[in-house]
């Protein structure tokens, strides 16, 4: 067990899987030069064929990864920032997500599309998206949204070994966070299994990605006030572990969903809808959402930062459902 950062967890996961399986290779813009520190030493270890810089052609190289995966390779595509997935949208939806189904199971597409969500740092509207909800409505794509270095490493390794396309949304607000991560080369976190990050009895806070840290902070504060918060981290949004979420809500009778995405059609909305549909009789209070409002993200720091979920907003929501 070592204490490592989120970015280092990504590096380790990639390094170990590239070492383990020669069909794994990495491609993306400027991956060799190691902009964020997730490919330190890769060119030396694996060579330029397997650590492949691409042109700025997202549709081209995502599609190429799909084609390579169909013939037995296991590409990891680094799209850098999540909005750069938009130019590749058709390849993601029409090819990556649908090929296996369309051809009745003849195709297998073991590939990973990695992208970081850079927000809260004055990157302005074109670089600040958290677009995983768009892909939750597109069957055929598994989606991981790790909230700490250990989950990041374990889920990414599972993603690379998965025989299906997996999108990895890596929350930039977690980049420098650290946690202990097993050294074991076969340390895997299963895709499709939520994690109760803190147990509690009064309110279930179901939080996604970078907002898990705020849910935990809020829970700590609220514990001091005698409110017992259970924090559930879905970890993967597709498949979504509704069982763990619903069990928690059936126990506590109250739920808050927290998600850095825009509110409309967010993962928070999906989870809230699932809760009211399937745990209604257990609910003692409305299910509130703590999300980013439906506006774009402005460059100017003082008006950008308050828009995202925060411990304060989670605390306010918890108090509200405790009072109702």
């Amino acid at each position, binding site marked *: 067990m070592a204490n490592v950062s989120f970015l280092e967890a990504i590096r380790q996961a990639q390094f170990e899987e590239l070492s383990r399986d020669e069909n794994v*290779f990495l491609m993306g813009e400027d991956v060799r030069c190691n902009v964020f520190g997730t490919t330190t030493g890769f060119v030396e270890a694996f060579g330029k*064929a*397997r650590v492949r810089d*691409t*042109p700025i*052609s997202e*549709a*081209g*190289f*995502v*599609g*190429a*990864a*799909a*084609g*390579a*995966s*169909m*013939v*037995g*390779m296991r590409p990891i595509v680094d799209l850098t920032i999540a909005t750069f997935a938009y*130019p590749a949208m*058709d*390849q993601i939806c*029409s*090819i990556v997500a649908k*090929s*296996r*189904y*369309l*051809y*009745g*199971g*003849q*195709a*297998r597409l073991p590939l990973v599309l990695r992208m970081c969500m850079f927000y809260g740092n004055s990157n302005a509207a074109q670089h600040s998206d958290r677009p995983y909800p768009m892909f939750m409505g597109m*069957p*055929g794509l*598994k989606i991981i949204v790790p909230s700490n270095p250990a989950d990041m490493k374990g889920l990414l390794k599972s993603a690379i070994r998965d*025989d*299906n396309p997996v999108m990895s949304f890596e929350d930039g607000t977690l980049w420098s966070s650290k946690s202990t991560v097993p050294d074991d080369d076969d340390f895997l976190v299963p895709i499709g299994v939520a994690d109760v990050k803190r147990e509690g009895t009064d309110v279930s806070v179901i939080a996604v990605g970078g907002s898990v840290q705020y849910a935990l902070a809020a829970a700590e504060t609220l514990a001091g006030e005698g409110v017992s918060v259970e924090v559930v981290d879905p970890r993967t949004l597709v*498949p979504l572990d*509704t*069982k763990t979420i*619903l069990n928690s809500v059936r126990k506590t009778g109250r739920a808050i969903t927290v998600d850095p995405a825009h509110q409309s059609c967010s993962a928070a909305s999906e989870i809230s809808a699932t809760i009211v549909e*399937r745990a209604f009789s257990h609910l003692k209070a409305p299910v509130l959402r703590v999300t980013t409002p439906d506006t774009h993200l402005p460059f100017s720091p003082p008006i950008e930062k308050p828009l995202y979920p925060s411990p304060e907003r989670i605390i306010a929501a918890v108090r509200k459902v405790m009072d109702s």
Partner: protein
Amino acid sequence: MKKERLELFRRMVLIRRFESHAEACHAKGEIPGSLHTATGQEAEIVGSCMALRPDDYMVGNHRSHGHPIAKGAAINPLMAELFGRSTGVCGGKGGSMHLSDFSVGSLGETSIVGSGVPVAVGAALGASLQGSDRVSLCFFGDGATNEGAFHEGMNLAAIWNLPVIFLCENNLYGVSTPAAEVISVKDIAERGAAYTMRSEIVDGQDVDAVFDVVGAAVSRARAGEGPTLVEAKTYRFAEHAANMGRVLLERGPELEEWLKRDPIELYRSKLIAGGTAADDLLAIETEIEDEIIASLDFARNSPYPEQSEAFTDVFTEPVPIPAWLNVVEDGDG
């Protein structure tokens, strides 16, 4: 060589008859969805595919029937697919625009225009990373060369020197739109210049010419000499898709001219002139007709997929089936 030539003929006729019967079944309502035939284009399809090895890769598009037939796929599963049956090559999930048979090296017949280009490039990348000498053939129309995906795929193949043959089926139209109005070069082959990619123009009605040009491109690709853009000048004799009468523009004498260059009749004459007995060709055609009729029986007698099949192949693991479908219980939650 004689055998090979007869096989070229045979596959062209097979496509023609397959599609002709399919059109009739579509008109009768036996085949659902849309139906895009390649009638008139058989030479460029067969000439290209026959220049490949069986284990080479191929990617096609919405006008999908000819590609797998030319690559040697079994007919029954293709026909059953058109009928939406569980015995179809895609289990009834793909239909007419997606007759992709992976067992003959196909990696998809994708109906989003241009979307197959990067996939074909990726297959070539995979082959090259694996140290195999397989090549990848990509079929697309004139209209597809205006899509960004085409451009990005071409550039990738060029910079990575990948074994790809980009086969543009220039049939002069995209739906109702003349290529000349929406493509800013006279010959699509000129687009190779933007990638320093070797390009060729070939008479798409002459199956031998296509076979030779693509064959040379395949040899180069296999030898590590990189990709080629091949523009086959051809023509579709029918509407863009069955029952789209409204968009069968008045093509006037142009259609008449092209009908004179029916690739099958041209090749029949050539073979006969070269000493093949006309009866040998007729025998092939009779045999094919029987094969197609048998495939229709096969399709019609095949069952539709079970409702639960709608939930397989999303992932390698099944996804939950909602309880209201009364198939199996949704165990979840």
